[in-house]
């Protein structure tokens, strides 16, 4: 997996183009992981997270 997009300019030098879009599924996966983990945590813990 690449982290950056790199190309070569007219003189053959490496040029940084931007962040690699291979990371987009990673960003989405992290969001899904946090959501699923919290949903499971709340399902197990119930409403004990609220003040009485």
């Amino acid at each position, binding site marked *: 997996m690449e982290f*950056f997009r790199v190309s070569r*300019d007219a003189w053959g030098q490496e*040029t*940084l*183009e*931007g*962040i690699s*879009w291979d*990371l*987009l599924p*990673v*960003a*989405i996966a*992290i*969001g*899904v992981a*946090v*959501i699923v983990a*919290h949903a499971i945590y*709340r399902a197990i813990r119930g*409403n*004990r*997270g*609220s*003040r009485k």
Partner: protein
Amino acid sequence: MNDEALEARSAEAAGERIPRHAAVDRAFHWIVAVSVLTLLATSLLPVAGVKFSWVTIHWVTGIVLIAAVLFHIVRALFWQKPRCMAVRGRDVKAAMRGAATGKYSLAQKLMHHALGVIVLVAIGTGIAMLAKVDTPFWERDPYLLSSGTWGIVYVLHGLAALLAVTLVMIHVYFGLRPENRGYLRAMVRGWMTREEALAKHEHVEHWTKVGARR
């Protein structure tokens, strides 16, 4: 007072509406929400293979976001109390008790700060990238920065976008949680019930003193 009357008074107090967000602050929130979703969609859908002319929608929406953020910064600094968003030790201790000690919980403050930094990075790099766009107001100048510097600008802008994807997903999830329904209503209608507020916050009376002065 007999038990029935006490119960009726208690129920009435529980349903009392606690004002939380002024109309202008709610409008700001939803304008930013629509702007950020539009910016993410116009930039990332083409990456995912959905091709369309996205550049104009993207930078025009970026201008809208910049205007909204500038409005919020001025309003928060001069019409509201910025310290209500400061993270303090007592916020962490309250979070361990499952509560918030002020108007905003630790999680809400951290989300605000994280998204704030990400949006500011995206805006700063986006403003630089406006130089590469032909608009009715200016001609593009792709040589404003060196190619190496442009690379850093694009990396930061892309990184801000990816982090925004993750945080927006998490923010929307928590906004739709059943136990947070009061917060969602407060961001639409401006108020939550006293019962909802006291379920999460240790003090609610000072909301009308700290935060929005209407």
